[in-house]
């Protein structure tokens, strides 16, 4: 027995268990993704996972750390999956490899490895790639496109040309571009009426994928892996701003539901702003973090130059998280009544 220190009794928690649950929670979203866009996303996930594990192993070796608990802790795999899901499914293979490398090597290990990274590695990967390769990162296949797996794979591995018809934009992007092109002659509702692109709620196909993320996220919450504070605040921040502006001018601004179920909102709410390492830790801090990230994501999404704002919003809030924590320390046992 290990006599060093009590308690001698521990529950069965482990970092690996936490990470495996996060991966499991991603499955409904991935399932919907495959169903709607075909299995190419699995190729991307595999690419990212392999890259992440290789990079993790190499970095551990370089930093003279044991491979044993760290390579299998699952954290690199979670990062990899998030990257694969955040990137366009038909992005060239080297893009996802570059992004993943950047996430694991720089955003994670150069900051000290597991538990030490101030920024969410997956969001770093996204931000770096969208700044460096804006065109590639903005090309999303329309769900209506019927393309065989082989053809998709050829595109990813650069064996087939990237034709405009194949690679379009996300519904978010399409809406923004549409509004800009029409310069106010056509309202949001007319644009959204194009069900081919926008589906019933928030982008054909995408609404199912994001609903899958929501399902997984709720499951994580039920299991106690994530608390409700950050995701709920994030969605609230996003919908509040979206709702306000939509009520103000429905011709110019899409409804909140559209925003909730498109782009990275659901993935971000349940899998990104819940990242404990780079987020806030106090309940109040999580609320502030989530709400601000949600509101900021909306602002960048609608008024900024990028198709989606989740990544930049989260990274900005990552920067503030330590400070928010300091100012939101909860009162401790017996000290809640200030008069004492």
């Amino acid at each position, binding site marked *: 027995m290990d006599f060093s*220190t009590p308690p001698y009794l*521990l529950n069965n928690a482990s970092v690996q268990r936490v990470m495996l649950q996060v991966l499991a929670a991603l499955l409904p979203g991935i399932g919907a993704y495959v169903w709607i866009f075909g299995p190419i996303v699995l190729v991307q996930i595999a690419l990212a996972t392999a890259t992440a594990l290789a990079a993790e192993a190499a970095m551990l070796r370089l*930093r003279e750390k044991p491979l044993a608990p760290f390579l299998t802790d699952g954290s690199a795999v979670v990062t990899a999956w998030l990257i694969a899901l955040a990137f366009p499914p038909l992005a060239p293979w080297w893009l996802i490899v570059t992004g993943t490398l950047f996430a694991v090597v720089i955003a994670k290990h150069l900051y000290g490895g597991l538990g030490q990274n101030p920024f969410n590695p997956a969001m770093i990967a996204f931000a770096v790639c969208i700044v460096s390769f804006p065109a590639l990162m903005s090309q999303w296949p329309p769900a209506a496109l019927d393309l065989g797996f082989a053809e998709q794979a050829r595109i990813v591995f650069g064996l087939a040309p990237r034709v405009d018809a194949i690679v379009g934009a996300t519904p978010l992007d399409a809406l923004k571009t549409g509004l800009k092109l029409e310069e106010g002659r056509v309202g949001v509702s007319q644009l959204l009426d194009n069900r081919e692109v926008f589906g019933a709620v928030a982008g054909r196909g995408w609404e199912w994928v994001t609903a899958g993320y929501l399902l997984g996220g709720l499951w994580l919450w039920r299991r106690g892996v994530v608390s409700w504070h950050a995701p709920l605040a994030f969605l609230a921040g996003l919908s509040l701003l979206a709702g306000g502006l939509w009520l103000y001018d429905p011709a110019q601004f899409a409804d909140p539901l559209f925003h909730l179920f498109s782009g990275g909102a659901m993935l971000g709410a349940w899998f990104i702003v819940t990242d404990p390492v780079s987020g806030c830790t106090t309940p109040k801090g999580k609320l502030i973090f989530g709400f601000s990230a949600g509101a900021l994501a909306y602002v960048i999404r609608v008024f900024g130059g990028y198709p989606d704002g989740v990544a930049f919003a989260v990274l900005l809030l990552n920067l503030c998280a330590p400070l928010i924590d300091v100012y939101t*320390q909860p009162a401790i046992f017996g000290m809640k009544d200030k008069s004492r």
Partner: protein
Amino acid sequence: MLQLFKFKGGVKPQTNKTQSVGEPIGVAPLPSRLFVPLHQSIGGTPRPLVAAGERVLKGQLIGGADGWISAAVHAPTSGTVRAVAEHVAAHPSGLTTLSVEIEPDGRDEWIERTPIDHGALAPERVRERLREAGVVGLGGAVFPTHGKLTASKTVPMEELVINGAECEPYITCDDLLMRERAEEIVRGVGVFRDLLQPKRVLIGIEDNKPEAVAALQAAAAKLGENFAVVAVPTRYPAGGAKQLIRVLTGKEVPSTKRSTDLGVQCFNVATAYTAWRAVAHGEPVVSRIVTLTGNVERPRNWEALLGTPLAEFVALGGPKPDTDGYLMGGPMMGFAMPTMDAPLVKATNCIIASSPALFPPKAPEMPCIRCGECAKVCPHELQPFELYWFARAKNFGKTQEYHIFDCIECGCCSFVCPSRIPLVQYFRFAKSEIWAREKEKNAADQAKARFEWKTAREEREKAEKAEKLAKAAAAQAAKKAAEAAAAAAGEAAPAPAAAEAATNVPAATNPPLDAEAAKKAAIAAALERARAQRAAVEPKNVDRLTPAQQKDIAEVDARRQQAGIEAPPTAPEESQP
């Protein structure tokens, strides 16, 4: 029905209590030797009152209480004192403590016992009796009971809380005591009630002990006592005094206050039992109920004499071959007994034989992922991971800002941490370091005070000397002047010259003195600066520790106060995995 409150946090480890409740409390046979440590409770170490070769009777005083917060120690059986010497303590460090070694004579012959009628005596006399009988908190804190039996002068006593929660896994000694000796517990509670005069008496027992609840309810009814015997939800650490007070009364006792300041006081059921034995039977505390469980053939509760060596005690249960150690206390807050010679003491509520199957080796420590699980379960609503980061960085001032001294070391945080960080160990390390620094600082302050006093004295002496010299010189000058005046009578204004001479003399001796004074002033200033610097980096809230906090600290530290400081398992400088 009493309204119950909730405390935040807590965990639900497997209770593992059923194994040891099958048999009634057994009376452990006389061991071949007893090693009775003189220091078994918080407070002053009792003075030995016997010497080698002396014959003692069961219950005879062998260690007199030293100071008011101290509790006497008695011979657990009749026999001969073989030695009064250092013996290994019931402490993880394996350090020794002054102990009385007794060879039993097998007759177990009591000293003359004098019961008292506590109702007819002044409260001070009853408290004194408890002190003389060595009655201390048997829930594990071993704080002398008489020291807790005085109500606050300003706050009326509202509730007396009696702790029968027994929330730690494996331990069942209080459960069995409540089942079998409920009446005496209730009578003991009556003594406490009479001393403290609370409005209500609440007895809290975790709801996994229905037999104990029923037994106490029946006993209270039989004796016509209006005590509320309440089943509280089973959740570790519901048996922590502050948690139980919270659950039963809704009051949160902050670490800066005594519970009596909030009109509430808390005692363990076994303490009430021993108090009654002391009052009504004149029996001092010479034995206690100890659960023997874990990796043994016959788990059971035993009434064992204090001082029984571990080896002889565990033999009663038949340890299985793969037993690899023994824990004293529960698996959450207990510790590994250092050797088989270590004795059972007043704080020993449970001995658990461990095996690799029961307590598997811990997984390697991973870096903190800030998941916040530890904060979720902390019953004192601390942020354990913040404490961990600061303790690890040896930023002890920050650990105090984040309330490290509110940590009761319950182990809930370590229990759930997915990174398997031995958080409690880091907290103990930080606390010990802070205490050590505090001590050092006090020592330095004393040295400084001594130095300053000495310097001041020297200066005073010098000044006095100088003054004397000056006076002498002045006198001489005056004399000379007078002589001169006498000699040259008629010459004008001799007196001013004399006066000038007189004032000039001390002025002439001044410069060297001044230089010295300047040097001293410089030294003093440097010292003051150093002190200010120290104060700046020094932990802040130690200075404001209240008696209650100090008591808590003392309790927390009780088990390791004689020990070396345990350092955290990994080198704290290494900031990354």
